């Protein structure tokens, strides 16, 4: 009898059409990601309708390629998993309806997965998660601090009150004149600059683990406008560095504080902004100083992918947390609902 759990997973919550096959929650048999970024660049950001159109163009291709790369056929599979939300609703619906059709055709259980749970479980693709832990999720759509005392147990202890950190990066990048997506460009440029502007650090009220980057973003934009109006020369690298330093200060201080307050030894960073080299370096220094075990997934598992959805789905499979054919997409889902 084959006791391996082999899950085919689909992720279409934003601008990547992705399908992956994972054995036992951590062994990647295939991981196919078709990025739409080249298409969205011309608009300066992801356009939901365009994203949905691209998903339907490639969805069966990514499924086929995931199976072929893994050298498997549908009878080898244990289940099909899919991102239920949060995300762009029209984009989610393509993945969800494909997953439901696939599940019906091959008589496989269907596993709905929370996108953020996926980002956290991306770490499981490299090593088992150790609990309790605190996880910081930073991406174009999310900025959250989550406490986990065990597998699939989520407590949101902090979240953004306005812009997600990746969103602030994109907006600041646009003002500096950098292309979309802004994060990697600001990260690169900041290495050539100084923190000369000393932008505010939005810590909010004492004791809060929440974030707010909208004010910082406005401060950067206003400063740039003022300088330009006065005809003063602005060194873009300095703006990038100053902005990034403020973001890193706030993210690291709040996260390290949460790790101390919740008395955990394990910290996970996840999401697309976890690819930021400045942020990674600062976390590495602080965690080494304070003896915290830090896990950050490899770059390709930081950005949206389906392997992470399959990694999280493994635990849902073991708990028989299955969905039905009436599964629908949701643009917002409280991750605490997903606790089992």
């Amino acid at each position, binding site marked *: 009898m084959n006791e391996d759990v082999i899950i085919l997973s689909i992720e279409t919550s934003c601008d990547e059409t992705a399908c992956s096959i994972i054995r036992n929650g951590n062994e990647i048999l295939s991981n196919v990601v078709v990025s739409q970024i080249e298409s969205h660049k011309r608009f300066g950001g992801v356009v939901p309708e365009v994203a949905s159109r691209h998903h339907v163009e490639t969805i069966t291709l990514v499924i086929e390629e995931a199976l072929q790369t893994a050298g498997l056929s549908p009878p080898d599979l244990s289940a099909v998993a899919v991102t239920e939300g949060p995300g762009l609703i029209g984009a989610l619906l393509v993945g969800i*309806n494909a997953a439901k059709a696939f599940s019906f055709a091959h008589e496989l259980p269907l596993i709905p997965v929370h996108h953020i749970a996926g980002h956290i479980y991306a770490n499981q693709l490299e090593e088992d998660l150790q609990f309790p832990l605190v996880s910081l999720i930073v991406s174009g759509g999310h900025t959250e601090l989550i406490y986990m005392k065990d597998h699939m147990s989520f407590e949101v202890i902090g979240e953004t009150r306005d812009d997600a950190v990746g969103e602030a990066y994109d907006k600041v990048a646009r003002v500096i004149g950098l292309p979309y997506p802004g994060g990697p460009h600001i990260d690169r440029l900041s290495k050539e600059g100084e923190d000369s502007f000393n932008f505010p650090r939005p810590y909010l009220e004492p004791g809060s683990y929440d974030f707010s980057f909208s004010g910082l973003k406005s401060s950067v934009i206003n400063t740039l406008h003022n300088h330009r109006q006065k005809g003063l020369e602005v060194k873009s690298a300095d703006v990038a560095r100053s902005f990034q330093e403020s973001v890193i200060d706030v993210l690291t201080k709040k996260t390290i504080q949460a790790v101390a307050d919740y008395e955990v030894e394990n910290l996970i960073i996840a999401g697309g902004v976890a690819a930021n080299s400045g942020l990674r370096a600062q976390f590495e220094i602080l965690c080494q100083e304070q003896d915290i075990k830090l896990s950050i997934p490899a770059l390709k598992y930081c950005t949206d992918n389906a392997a992470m959805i399959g990694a999280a789905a493994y635990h849902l499979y073991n708990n028989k947390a299955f969905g*039905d054919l*009436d*599964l629908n997409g949701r643009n917002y889902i409280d991750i605490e609902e997903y606790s089992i």
Partner: protein
Amino acid sequence: MISLLIDTSNRPLSVALNKNGYCLAEINTTVKKTHSATVMVHVSRLFDIAGYNRNDIDRIIVARGPGSYTGVRIGVTVAKTLAHALGVDLYSVSSLAVIAASSNKEGILAPMFDGRRGNVYSAAYRLGQNGMDEVVQAGYRSLDALNEQLAEYPEHQCLLDGEEKFSEDVESFLHTVPRISTIEKYESMMRQEDVHGMVPEYLKVSEAEKNWMERTQQ
């Protein structure tokens, strides 16, 4: 030959199982429900009602649009994935042709969907003893432009799909609930599709792309 037929392109939903072109089972709804949540439930139910297994079908026929962008995508995604998973042929039909076939009328039929701001997604078909052909090509156009093209066919009948929003602008019309099982009588309306390559027929570029094209042409 067993066919599975799917139309989720507008507010009505229609799914059917046909045997040699005749309806075995069909589910039609016009209530405002999320097709994303219901379509696979209804498809699964069809097999139960008809007593067939999913592997018994020979082909899938899907309404490719026009219609609600999201609605069309749901039907097309389900059809593509099922065709790929079950290894069967995939065919598409215009959602407008489905309305014409569902009306059970003959002559020149002009189905249309609201395209907002005085525009309609529309076409015209000749239905009769010799089957069905398209006499006004499916397109996105102003109601005035459609009327000009229809002037050539004074005996035409306009068909709406139950949507009342723009009906006051159409002189005389009948409401027709789409019944996807009816389209299989008209093989000429079917287009065989490449499963991977098939895309919905939106008949309209997205707002963002339209604006981008205008910007880049300047």
